[in-house]
């Protein structure tokens, strides 16, 4: 990517915003976002990540992207994962070990049901969106 001008930056921002709103990036409409701060990694987020990828592969699901993000601040329930599935509420899961990760793929992504005992609340509203 070459250096941008002001116009190019604005264009890029709008384009990326649209993508975010549509939630559809390159045909993938399910998003699994794993908290990968030091705290999450220490709590086993890498194992969870592996389990997600493996379970997705096993079930031959091709509309899922798995991404990383920073820490959500829910240290007492790390690793934390946000799951976005069309027509389902965006959901934050806590204490997502490898087994739970597999359950999330099977029950939430495929079964369109929440995984009980692991649902948590996003701690605040999003001021950027306001």
């Amino acid at each position, binding site marked *: 990517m070459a250096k941008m001008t002001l116009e190019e930056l604005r264009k890029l921002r709008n384009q990326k915003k649209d993508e975010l709103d549509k939630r559809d990036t390159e045909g993938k409409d399910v998003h699994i976002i794993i908290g990968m701060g030091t705290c999450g990694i220490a709590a086993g987020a890498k194992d969870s990540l592996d389990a997600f990828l493996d379970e997705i592969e096993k079930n031959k699901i091709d509309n899922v992207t798995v991404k990383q993000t920073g820490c959500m*601040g829910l240290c007492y329930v790390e690793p934390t994962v946000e799951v976005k599935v069309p027509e389902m509420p965006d959901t934050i899961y806590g204490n997502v070990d490898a087994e739970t990760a597999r359950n999330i793929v099977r029950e939430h992504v495929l079964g369109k049901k929440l995984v009980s005992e692991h649902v948590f609340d996003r*701690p605040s509203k*999003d001021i950027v969106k306001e």
Partner: protein
Amino acid sequence: MAVKNFILVCGGTACESSKANDIFNALKSEVEAQGVDKDVQIVKTGCFGFCEKGPIVKVLPEEAFYVEVTPEDAKEIISESIVKGRMVKRLLYVDDTDKKKEDDFDIENIKFYQKQVRIVLRNCGFIDPEKIEEYIARDGYAALEKVLFDMSPDDVINELKVSGLRGRGGAGFPTWMKWNFTKGVESDQKFIVCNADEGDPGAYMDRSTLEGDPHSVLEAMTIAGYTVGANKGVIYIRAEYPLAIKRLEIAIEQAREYGLLGEDILGSGFSFDFEIRLGAGAFVCGEETALLRSIEGNRGMPTPKPPFPAVEGLWGKPTVINNVETWANVPMIILKGGKWFNSIGTEKSSGTKVFALTGKINNSGLVEVPMGTTLREIVFDIGGGIKDGKKFKAVQTGGPSGGVLTNDFLDTPIDFDQLTAIGSMMGSGGMIVMDEDDCIIDVAKFYQEFCVEESCGKCAPCRIGTRKLYDILDKISKGKGTHKDLENLETIGNAMKKAALCGLGQTAPNPILSTLKYFKDEYLEHVDDKVCRAGKCKDLVRFEIDPEKCIGCTVCSRKCPVGCISGERKQPHSIDQSQCVKCGACYAACKFGAIKKS
């Protein structure tokens, strides 16, 4: 057929104890009874952090937020929310100030239950920190854009002034003044420095911010560079934060590629670039002059102020130095305006503060709340209360520089000046919750030991004082303290406050002076009665066997590592106090409650 509704029942400790389980079961039977079990999934969740209004039930996708729910409400929730698709108005939470709950209900109000407001942590958990595009998509670098093309340096300073932003790292110095000092000095070179040498025990908000949103700090520092006329930013970060360092490096690289750093940013003619310097993790290097000396390659020892870094900083050049949290606020202030920022928080402390909530608390974690939020809200709502139903004793804020906040201050709005007024300080934002099992002398000793270790050794009041204070606490914890010692704690503490060279030494006595003020009785108990009520001071604990309860099972004598418990089988045992090392193994092993701790 897909599920249409989700009913979330709070399974947090507090809600659980107030019948969340019964509600869960009642809802389950109701969906079956009303025949909608195929359309609804009932889920148990983690704590919503609104415990005073628990138990809580939330219905999705409508986001209906029901508070103080009872099992008897289950029927109505299902019939109204699920079957008829209407909210149960009487259960909905609305802001207390809004009295017109029933009749004039506004859907917008239901979101207000959350006590956290995330400005600093706005992107943490939203974006992939290793992808600059995701930051840009969330208005990243829009503030820089605005500053470079629509604002003069004076406009920026003014916006900061209006915002009332104060430095988040320690004493809360107004940020605009720092910038303005540096801006006003003529110099061939100026520097912008980020203090990421977070060192308080239990504090990790800066690490999380850098790991989750590195660009916000880069953007803010670039804005500062434009404002004061600096072209070079230095991020001083402790080497123990490898992930944060990696993400910063990636962020800098990506920003350079996009031309958001380097020469002639976005064609504005302004150039700025970064360097990352790793610190070895010495606590004193969080003190700004020591930090600058460390960047220069010298021993991390503070130098007297004045001269202040704003005028004579890195390599003797004017330098703006702020910590991570302060920086992370800046882009939002530029984008949403100083007025907006100033509307959050209290009169003299605007905006939010990130705390690392740890200790005997159910929901430990990072919380960001508006200044002025009370301790009660943080501990009991967001934090979900004290672990294992124990009694709240105090909260330690400000780490080794701070003090304790007791029961009496649960409803004190927390901001810079309030904390200082009650003998603590904001510090970087560590917040450690203590319960009845914590001994206040033990807590003070912990912080003092930290200060002994972390004193740089340059100035006598701190170098000698920290150790003297520790030795006295140690004596007291062993039951050897005297009233003269208590007096000496204050004498030395006061001398350090006035005569220590830097903030570390000046504030090191705070944990002691503050506990001495609010828990004098506990100090006196240790000194006069040789008693530690929390049972933390080993030398003051005594284990005894109640011959009435002891059945002579011999388990305790087998567990005792020094073999000081004797007795015949099936006969009451006894402990040889002269040999006992107070390890508590017998106490833990006895199934009959025959061993008493006093």
